[in-house]
């Protein structure tokens, strides 16, 4: 079936096709266009040249079952955890009882039961990012775009949330396009890692991770393949990252 | 059912006394009128209120009507309220004391004289008086416009002005009440240029449109006010009028108020005449506040009310 394969073509000879239930990480120096890529796919930025297709349709279509997790949680500060989680269902016009039930279930999966009434400012950064995940996942998207979702968390919280998300994903495989600066994260979570060059963004290299699933982060760290991939990618990127840092902010 | 009316008074000043008496003595009521007096912070907003329809009548300076008539605005005067300019030039006591005699207008040479606002009645009158005494108001004296008579006295106390042109009852308040000033010239008692006598100082105005539709009401108003003017003029009512004035204008200076009422009592007369327009022009033209030619008497005054004025009786 042609909806099994999603055709995504972007920007400066960036040619990328995501398979159903595949987890693809994208790494690249700051400012190389990673976020722009996601915005093209989500239909947030109009495509100037080239073609982007999401489930066979142009991006931004009203029915595209897309989820987007941002680096900053993007929670509405005046809504409590539950009200934030239901927003996509609310916008769709799903009845209150149903949407709240679904949201509560997803919050439980994320380990947030008991915090439904809290405002975003009252919970920790790690919890906020999990609410943001719950909000995206409750809508049951077929493709999840994630733009450095754990980039703003402290290292330990990040480890915890990576573990949780990895477990969830392995149980509910969905297509994921995951942007990160963290090479360890990219390798540990994904099936495939794309390395982008600095502006104008091109795909420099592509690695099949090849670590079997189900994984746990602790195991992965011990695998020679992990360190090997990490080194290889860092080899690709070191020069670009240095350039990116020395450019103006 | 009484006719409700709003009558404006351009400044809260004792020149509106006939209206206050007509209200408090029930003369309006006798005519079937329910009158509310509205005080303003000057002629322009009051005239604006009259034209905008918030007021049916306005107690304001004749000069305002002369100016509006020249600008073809449909405002007309239907009676006189106070015929003489009720003002006085006062001088600070310590300056007067140095003279060692009663001050004269000539003594104002080189002094700073407070007025109410530039181009306003006190300002042009001061200039006129100075000129008649041979003093050039531009070169030989400094005229300082200060909003509000209380501020004039404050400015005098602060040493900012030496003399002031004040309207009633501020003359008596400053001289007899506070004892810090002395009179130089008091037009209310007939001193100074004759121009200030029988000049149509403050008049009752309305719009031509209103008059066309409500002539009977206008007649009732005129009748009530004429009755009040007559009441004020009667010497045996001085005490009662003083009490009414104190209640309306503040009771801090009862002695001064009584003097003010007594000296003004005979200046509240309803009569108008063609010479009044000329006197107003004589006052305004030299100051560039209005240009010749003068508007016709009939464009300013509706003399058809003259029969009602006569109820006041003869004037000496």
């Amino acid at each position, binding site marked *: 079936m042609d909806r099994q394969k999603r055709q995504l073509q972007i920007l400066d000879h960036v040619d990328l096709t995501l398979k159903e239930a595949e987890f693809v990480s994208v790494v690249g120096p700051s400012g190389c266009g990673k976020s722009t890529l996601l915005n093209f796919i989500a239909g947030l930025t109009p495509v100037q040249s080239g073609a982007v297709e999401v489930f066979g349709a142009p991006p931004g279509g009203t029915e595209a079952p897309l989820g987007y997790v941002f680096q*900053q949680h*993007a929670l509405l500060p*005046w809504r409590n955890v539950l009200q934030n989680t239901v927003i996509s269902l609310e916008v769709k016009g799903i009845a209150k009882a149903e949407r709240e039930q679904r949201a509560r279930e997803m919050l439980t999966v994320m380990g947030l039961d008991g915090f439904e009434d809290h405002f975003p400012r009252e919970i920790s950064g790690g919890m906020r990012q999990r609410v943001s995940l719950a909000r995206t996942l409750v809508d049951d998207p077929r493709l999840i775009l994630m733009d450095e979702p754990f980039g703003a968390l402290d290292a330990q919280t990040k480890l915890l949330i990576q573990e949780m998300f990895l477990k969830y994903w392995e149980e509910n495989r969905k297509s994921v396009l995951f942007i990160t600066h963290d090479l360890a994260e990219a390798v540990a979570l994904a099936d495939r890692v794309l390395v982008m060059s600095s502006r104008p963004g091109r795909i420099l290299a592509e690695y099949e991770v090849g670590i079997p699933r189900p994984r746990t982060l602790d195991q992965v760290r011990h695998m020679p393949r992990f360190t090997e991939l990490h080194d290889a990618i860092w080899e690709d990127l070191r020069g670009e990252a240095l350039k990116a840092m020395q450019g103006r902010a | 059912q009484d006719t409700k009316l709003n009558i404006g008074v351009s400044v*809260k000043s004792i020149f509106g006394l006939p209206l206050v008496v007509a209200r408090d003595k029930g003369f309006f009521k006798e005519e079937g009128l329910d009158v509310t007096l*509205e005080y*303003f912070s000057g002629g322009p907003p009051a005239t604006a*209120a009259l*034209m*905008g329809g918030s007021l049916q009548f306005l107690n304001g300076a004749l000069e305002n009507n002369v100016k509006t008539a020249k600008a073809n605005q449909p405002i007309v005067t239907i009676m006189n309220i106070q015929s003489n300019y009720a003002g006085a030039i006062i001088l600070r006591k310590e300056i007067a004391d140095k003279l060692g005699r009663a001050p004269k207008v000539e003594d104002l040479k080189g002094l700073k004289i407070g007025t109410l606002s530039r181009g306003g009645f006190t300002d042009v009158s001061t200039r006129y008086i100075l000129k008649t005494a041979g003093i050039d108001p531009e070169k030989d004296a400094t005229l300082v416009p200060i909003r509000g008579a209380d501020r004039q006295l404050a400015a005098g106390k602060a040493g900012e002005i030496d003399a002031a042109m004040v309207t009633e009852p501020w003359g008596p308040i400053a001289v007899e009440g506070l004892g810090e000033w002395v009179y130089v010239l008091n037009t209310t008692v007939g001193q100074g240029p004759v121009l200030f006598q029988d000049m149509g100082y403050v008049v009752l105005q309305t719009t031509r449109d209103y008059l066309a539709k409500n002539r009977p009401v206008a007649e009732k108003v005129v009748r009530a006010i004429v009755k009040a003017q007559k009441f004020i003029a009667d010497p045996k009512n001085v005490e009662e009028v003083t009490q009414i004035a104190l209640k309306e204008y503040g009771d801090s200076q009862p002695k001064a108020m009584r003097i003010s009422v007594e000296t003004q009592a005979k200046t509240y007369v309803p009569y108008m005449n063609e010479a009044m327009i000329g006197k107003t022009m004589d006052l305004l033209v030299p100051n560039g506040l209005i240009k010749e030619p003068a508007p016709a008497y009939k464009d300013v005054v509706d003399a058809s009310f003259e029969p009602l004025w006569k109820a006041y009786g003869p004037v000496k």
Partner: protein
Amino acid sequence: MMDQDSARQVTILKVVLLVVIVGGWELSARFGLIPVFWTSSPSLIAVAFWESLKENEITYHTYITMQEALAGLAAGAVVGVMLGLVLGVSRVLGAALEPFVIAMNSLPRVALAPLIVMFVGIGFASKFLLAFSLVVVPIMLNTYEGIKAADPQLINMMRVIHAKRYQVFYKVLLPNCVPWIFSALRVSISFAIIGAIVGEFISARAGIGYMIDSAAGAFDTTGMIMPLIVLMVLAFSIDRAFVATSNRLLRWRDEALS
């Protein structure tokens, strides 16, 4: 952040300051250091207040002024918020209108008294309009700022979940403005009162401005200052109540007003 200790110090200092100001004024007046005729004194003011209270005068005039001010504030808030929202939603229009609005707002309203009286008459309307004209622009500009300050990421989030434009408006832009509107409302309280009083100076039969004007005409400094102080206390209490209410309503915010 302030610890309990400093908080107590502040409270004590406030009381001390109040005592010094009021006491210093009273004593200077008693010992003739300042002329009572022009500056009155706290005890004279207190007596005048008590007299006025007994005759129900100050209460009545305060009621009138507050009525004008609050009506102007309410109308200014409604219109200002609506205009601000329109400008904020249509950014081009907003950016184009902004300089005109600011220029208009820098005019001294008192100078326009004849125009106001001509078009809206005297009575309630003119005071209302002055209060309104002083508050509508700040409220409008703040609402506009509130819309502009909305986090673009929140709007992106709404677009990703296919929210309609009106949903973005009601669920993101509008709530985002609320703290901005509240802070504009707070400063507008005293603007509205000043507007009402200036209106009363042009022409009035009642209100604090009328009391002050009458007292000025009667050479009564105590009578001028007393209503001003009542007004000051009132404005201050309203401000406190407003801050308390807004901190309750906006408890989702990081920072509270103080």
